[in-house]
């Protein structure tokens, strides 16, 4: 690293904060749906389940640029969903940070669902039966037995979704481009810096931030999961 050292430029700070915002909103907003989908896959049998499962996992295996392009088609201003969101709640996705959050949510979704599904599958169904015989309706059993027991996996899934969102590149740049201050995240800012002959310092600084966030997220996930497990063992 040269003389610029750790002096982050305003544009770099903007990219860092935008990334955190995009990843936090993307992961939190998709969590309820991820839990619902994971529960369907873990606990319910229905026709077309394997097709549904494949659809959920598609963003994991499809080229991110394809996902980004499909988002552009569906959630751009002219897209069916994009138009509907704009009409109903004034929410615009294309070329806005909200679009980056949507791209991050879609890309992180399969990882969240997978992790949450695994933890739901480890919850002993016999405990849920016991709660049923005590008179509890299904939603109450889910909220008071299933969710708390699956909490470590849900937290892990949330943080995994967050970390994936921080690193998201292909779908984001395709859907919302790479506009400094608007849609430029850490990943797309690093890409821009690598294209710039004078971007070496920026690349290094943002790379360091990206690694730090990833490491912190993993530690936080481990620590939270351990705490929940401990609380379960000795409340």
């Amino acid at each position, binding site marked *: 690293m040269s003389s610029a050292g750790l002096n982050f430029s305003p544009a770099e700070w903007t990219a860092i904060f935008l990334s955190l915002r995009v990843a936090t909103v993307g992961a939190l907003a998709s969590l309820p749906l991820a839990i619902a989908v994971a529960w369907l896959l873990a606990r319910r049998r229905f026709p077309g389940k394997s097709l549904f499962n494949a659809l959920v996992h598609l963003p994991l295996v499809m080229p991110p640029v394809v996902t980004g392009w499909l988002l552009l088609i569906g959630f751009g201003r002219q897209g069916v969903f994009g138009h509907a969101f704009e009409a109903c709640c004034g929410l615009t996705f294309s070329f806005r940070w909200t679009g980056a959050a949507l791209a991050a949510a879609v890309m992180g979704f399969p990882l969240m669902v997978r992790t949450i599904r695994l933890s739901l599958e480890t919850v002993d169904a*016999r405990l849920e039966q*016991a709660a049923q*015989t*005590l008179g*509890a309706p299904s939603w109450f059993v889910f909220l008071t037995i299933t969710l708390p027991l699956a909490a470590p996996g849900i937290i892990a899934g949330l943080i995994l979704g967050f970390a994936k969102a921080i690193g998201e590149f292909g779908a984001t740049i395709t859907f919302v481009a790479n506009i400094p201050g608007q849609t430029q995240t850490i990943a797309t800012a690093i890409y821009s810096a690598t294209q710039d002959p004078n971007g070496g310092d920026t690349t290094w600084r943002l790379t360091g931030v990206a690694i730090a966030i990833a490491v912190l997220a993993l530690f936080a996930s481990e620590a939270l999961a351990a705490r929940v497990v401990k609380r379960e063992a000795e*409340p």
Partner: protein
Amino acid sequence: MIEIAVEHAQGDFTIEAGIRASGRVLALCGPSGAGKTTLLDIIAGLRRPRHARIAFDDVVFVDSERGLDVPARLRRIGYIFQEPRLFPHLSVAHNLTYGARFASRGPSLVGFAEVVALLGIEPLLSRGTSRLSGGEKQRVAIGRALLSNPRVLLMDEPLTAIDDARRQDILALIETLRDAFAIPIIFVSHRASEVERLASDIAEFERGRLVALRDSRASS
């Protein structure tokens, strides 16, 4: 009157039973794998039988002929499972009161303090469930079922892990429930002494089939 007519297939295992017992307490006996626990699960509404009629006096839980099948949570059955099935993330006290909020209808069978004293679980109330002994867990499970104010009690070898002195107390409590509250009880037991003491009717099972049904009061 306990009325249980069940026809149920699970893989290549089938259960067929037709029981009409006039007494209050029915014991299910037979070797392991005879289908006793499966039958209790069906009565509790945790398994859906192919064809059945299950009724306690005028309360009908299942009547396939009429397309009636009351969901498990509405049957108000106190089910004491073979393993305690305590909720591991809740304290003993919260386990005990879990069902109470859904049991508002009708007069309570027994009060919280009474159950806690009788089962000797007062010192455990604020504790988690993971460090309880097998017997302590089972006592909490019995308390939890009783405090849900059940109108039928199902017990699957509930006293196996419990020491002799405590066993006598719990048997006395079950007798009280039977005599004072007239609550129907169906239990699985391998102990002849328990069966003799509690049961008014005894159903013997072998490989899913009812092979004998006798009135214990008549034979003794």
